[in-house]
Every structure is written in C-alpha cells, then in structure tokens.
C-alpha cells in the first residue's frame, strides 16, 4: 500500500481561527459533563443546560459570520492535517446547519421548562440532550468520514437515553427497535468506510475527493458507495428502512421527540449529501453509476408510502412521525437530481424542515397538554378557547403543507422546479401529489383537533404554559422570516451548493 506520505500536511487555518469550527461541539460537550455532575440539583442543572445552548448558538452564529465571507474554517487536531490527523471543516453548509441546530435546541430548551420536570432532569435529560447536540454539530462540522461514524454512534446512545427517560414499557420497546436498526445502519456505514479506505488510503472527505477524482468505477468502490447509501438512508428514514422511526419516536417525552424529529434524520441525509456529492461526485463525473437513479426511486417510494401511512393515523404523534419521513424524501429528491439547483433546493428544504418539524411536534405537545391527549378523535374544538396557540399551530401546519409565503412553500417550489429542470417530471409529479396529500393530512388535523365542536367535550381544556408558547413563537417567526427573506437564504444555499461541488483541497495532492 502506498502511504500518502508525499502529501505535505498543511494547515491553512491556525488553531485560533480554525478553532471556531470546534466550539459548537465543545460547548455542549462541556455542558454535558457539567450537568452530569449537577444531577442532584435540577434547577442549577437546567440553568447550565440553557446557558450551554445559548453559548452554542452564539458560537454557531460567529462561525456562520466567518464562513459567509467565503472562508472555510479548518481545525486540524494536534496540528496534524489530513490525511494523517482528524480535521474539523466548517464550510457554508456545515455552518448554517449548525446554526439551525442551535435554534432548534433553543426552542426545545425553552419548551422543556414546561415539559421536563425535576424527575426527568434527574433521569438525565440535560446531559443526554447536550450530548446529542454535540454529536449533531460534530457530524455537521467534521471533515473525516470515520469521525462522522463516531458522531452517529454518540447520537444513537444519547437518543436511546432520551427516548427511555421515563422508563415506560412502550419507551423501552421503542428504544430496542430504534437501537437495533440503528446499529445495523452503523454497520453498513462502517463496511462502506472500510472498503473506501482500502481503495483510497484516506478517510478525510476532501482528500478522498482529490484521490478519487477521475477514477474508474471498481467493484470495491461501488459496493462502498451503496453500503454508505444504505446506512445513511436507514439513519435518514428512507424507504424501505424507515420502520424504526414511527415505532419509537412517538413514545418519548415531547421535548425529546421534537429534538429528534428536527435533528437526527437530517444528519443522516446530510451525511448522504456530503459523501455522495463530495466523495462520489454524483453531480459531476458520477464515479459510481446508478446512485442518483436509486436515490430518486427511494425518495419517491418514501414520500408516497409515508404520506399514505400518515393519513391513516389518529394519534398526532404518530401522524407527525410519518410526516418526518415524507419531508426527508423531499430532501433526497433534491439530492437525486444531482444538479446544482437540486442541491441548493435540498439545502433550503433542510433548513426549513428542521425548524418546522420541531415546531409541529412542540405544537402537538402543547395540544395534548390542553386537551388531555394526542388522540385527534377527542375533537375538542380548541380554536375557540386557545386562539393564539391555534394560530401558531396553523403557521407550522401550513408551512409543512407548502402554503405561501411560508418557508415550506419556497422549499417545495424549489425542489419541484429543480426536478422539472432536470427532466425528472415523474419525480416532480410525485412530489406535487404528495404535497397535496400532505395538505389533506394537515387539514384533517385541523378539522379534528381545532374545529371540532365544543359540545362533545368530555374533559376540561387546560391552559398551555407560556414556555411552550414562546418556543413555538420562536420557530414560527423563523419559518415566516425565511419565507419573506427567501432571496437571502437561496443565495446562501446556492453558494453552499457550489462550495460543496468544488471541495477545498488543502494543499492535498494525489
């Protein structure tokens, strides 16, 4: 094996400037350690958790300001650049997703004030939540494929802990299904990584792109590509490997479900995007043929199956869990088009869906708090008693369905427009049909949950805590803001997509 020793390990960013790429991971990790020590005093623990989330959001904002100038922040640990050491690389895509993660985390932390009581904090909500945030940011910011795998595993352990916070039998059952399937997916990813290393001799994502550029396809390369796609698709919740998600997410406390819904499947998709576009260059020379076609089929099958399953549900948590899958399918559709417009659309869609999925689940929790359950058949006619909450939920539901001027309209519009431009009309038609069915599904939620008559009421409508409302207001403002300032977001997404297709090779040779 030729060791790549002729490559000079050059580090373009010094430890101070490049260190900006590490803070969104380091802050929540430190916070997790600290909250673990403070387990005996829940209120102090909560304060530390909220402080860490705010600091993490601040670090992501400063990172985004840095990369918006066009720089790429690189931190090479121990001064060892690729391919020897592990690097953290913050480009536009990684930085903006880290920022969205911060916003989602802030909303969940606010909501948790009303939802996560002392017992759940003693059970470890704060350290697990911060550990999961560190893992999510780590996955968005790492420049190393094996390191990405490690973050996925950390995410899994933290998520299993969060799902089983109350130790209910349903949570244990859900967590077993989730953990078993995710371990299988991690194995697929590890197989892909091992084969890729055997072929290229490096695991740094940018370096892999340099080495594999212009390679002919081999059996090892194509096996590696399809194993990685299978593993990431399982993590993202794509057909036919999505059954773990609706079997487990609805059992967790609502703060947890909202965070998982907003973050975890998107990390799976992000890994797909990063690896398929940068390493296997599907939007350029397409080293391994057949991947975009398979991705398009997976996307179409996922969106159709998930929306039909969602329509059949009467429990709001289960209904929304199926909609998570449908939204990931739209992301995958943008990637499958393998065009720059498709990639930019997928990036806009990702920003939108992380915020709106979280908002919808938080809304579901508040609805259940008010009417005493998630069952839509309760039909309590909530809009007469809780008009502000109804309006906030309507913003989220309409954004999910793709109604202008909210962010969901632009996200769907851009993906479908890119599909027509890429001569994938069948995919665009499927997306339009599914968009219509999503609107139908949301309208059943609306007519059952909010319009129902007040005369059938069997329970008293309880008040919704202000913390829940503030969390929803934060996310609602985000979806309205993105919808109104779509030109800024789209320009940024276009830049991020073009940065993705021309990866920076930091003084790397073949």
């Amino acid at each position, binding site marked *: *094996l*030729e*060791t790549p*020793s*002729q490559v000079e390990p050059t580090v373009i960013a010094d430890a101070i400037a490049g260190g900006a790429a590490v803070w969104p991971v380091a802050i929540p990790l430190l916070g997790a350690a600290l909250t673990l020590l403070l387990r005996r005093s829940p209120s102090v623990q909560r304060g530390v958790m909220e402080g860490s989330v705010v600091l993490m959001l601040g670090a992501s904002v400063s990172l985004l300001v840095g990369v918006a100038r066009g720089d790429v922040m690189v931190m090479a640990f121990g001064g060892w650049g690729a391919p020897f050491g592990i690097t953290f690389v913050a480009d536009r895509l990684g930085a903006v997703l880290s920022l969205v993660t911060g916003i989602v985390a802030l909303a969940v932390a606010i909501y948790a004030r009303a939802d996560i009581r002392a017992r759940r904090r003693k059970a470890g909500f704060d350290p697990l939540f911060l550990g999961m945030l560190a893992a999510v940011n780590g996955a968005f910011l790492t420049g190393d494929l*094996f390191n990405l795998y*490690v973050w996925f*595993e950390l995410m*899994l*352990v933290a998520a*299993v802990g969060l799902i*089983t916070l*109350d*130790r*209910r*039998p*349903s*949570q*244990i*059952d*859900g*967590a*077993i*299904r989730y*953990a*078993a399937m995710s*371990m*299988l997916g*991690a*194995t697929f990813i*590890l*197989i892909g*990584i*091992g*084969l890729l*290393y*055997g072929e290229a*001799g490096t*695991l740094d994502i940018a370096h892999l792109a340099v080495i594999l550029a212009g390679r002919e396809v081999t059996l090892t390369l194509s096996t590696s590509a399809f194993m990685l796609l299978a593993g990431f698709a399982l993590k993202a919740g794509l057909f036919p490997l999505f059954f773990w998600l609706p*079997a*487990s997410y*609805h*059992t967790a406390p609502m703060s947890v479900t909202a965070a998982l819904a907003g973050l975890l499947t998107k990390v799976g998709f992000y890994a797909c995007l990063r690896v398929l576009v940068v390493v296997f260059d599907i939007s350029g020379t397409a080293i391994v043929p057949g991947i975009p076609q398979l991705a398009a089929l997976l996307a179409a099958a996922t969106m159709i199956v998930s929306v039909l399953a969602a329509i*059949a*549900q*009467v*429990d709001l*948590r*289960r209904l929304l869990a199926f909609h998570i899958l449908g939204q990931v399918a739209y992301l995958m559709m943008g990637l499958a088009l393998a065009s720059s417009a498709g990639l930019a659309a997928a990036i806009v869609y990702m920003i939108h869906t992380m915020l709106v999925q979280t908002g919808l689940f938080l809304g579901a929790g508040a609805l*259940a*708090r008010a009417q*005493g*359950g*998630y*069952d839509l058949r309760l039909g309590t006619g909530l809009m007469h008693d809780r008009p502000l909450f109804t309006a906030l939920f309507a913003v989220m539901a309409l954004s999910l369905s793709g109604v202008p001027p909210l962010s969901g309209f632009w996200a769907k519009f851009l993906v479908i427009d890119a599909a027509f431009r890429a001569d994938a009309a069948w995919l665009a038609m499927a997306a339009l049909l599914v968009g219509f069915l999503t609107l139908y599904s949301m309208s059943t939620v609306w007519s059952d949950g909010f319009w129902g008559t007040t005369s059938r009421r069997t329970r008293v409508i309880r008040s919704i805590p202000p913390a829940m409302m503030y969390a929803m207001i934060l996310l609602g403002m985000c979806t309205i803001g993105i919808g109104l300032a779509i030109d800024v977001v789209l320009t940024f997404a276009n830049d991020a997509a073009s940065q993705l297709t021309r990866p920076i090779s930091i003084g790397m040779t073949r």
Partner: protein
Amino acid sequence: MSVLYAVLAASLFGCALYMILSRNVVRLLLGLSMLASAVNLMVFLAGHLRSVQPPLIPDGADTLRDSADPVPQALILTAIVIGFALTVVLAALSLRAYRAQGTLNTDELRSAEHLGNPVAGGADGDR
C-alpha cells in the same frame, strides 16, 4: 491467506444476519455484536495482510514498504469500543424489557406499537 479471512468474514456476516432475524432480543443482541466482529475483520483486511514488520518508515525511504497499514487497526480499536458500548446499552434495554414485561419475544414486546395505534385501538396512556 486473504481469501481465507474473507471467507471467514463472509460466514460471520451470514451467521450474524441469521441471528438478527430471530425474534428473541438476546439472539438479536448477539447477532449484532457478531456482525460488528465481521465488519472489524473486514476493515482489518482492508489494511492488507502483510509481514510482521512494524509500520515504521525506514531511514532514507519515504514510503512504508513491507508492513500492513496501521490505520485500519486503529479504526478497529475505536469500533470495538463503540460496539461494546452499544451492546451494553442494548443489553440494558433488553433486561429492562424482560423485567417489565416478562418476555424477550419481539412479537410480544408491542407496547410501543400499541401506543396511539388506530388499529390496535391502544389507549392514549400518557399525556
């Protein structure tokens, strides 16, 4: 030699997948850890089987000559640790499920499926 190891890894994969298809959670757990071993063996092979010479670049040379690549071995060490941690987590979940419901059969461990299921008519147990 490599072929022998490849056949061994393949049969480990086969056995592990068979175990994972079982309805018993403990078999599933053992299958997953066996699958991790199979992958580790495969990653080990990706670094090539060479002489026993340690992976040091000799004086005056600038490439590694005749020894196996050490990076996959480092990766395997990491993967073993992670795999062990996840196995313990899954084992703890299985124990908890057995204590609460007295069964390890996945067909009977269905309280997550029943929660809010329109067909099973599961009541909305929690808020």
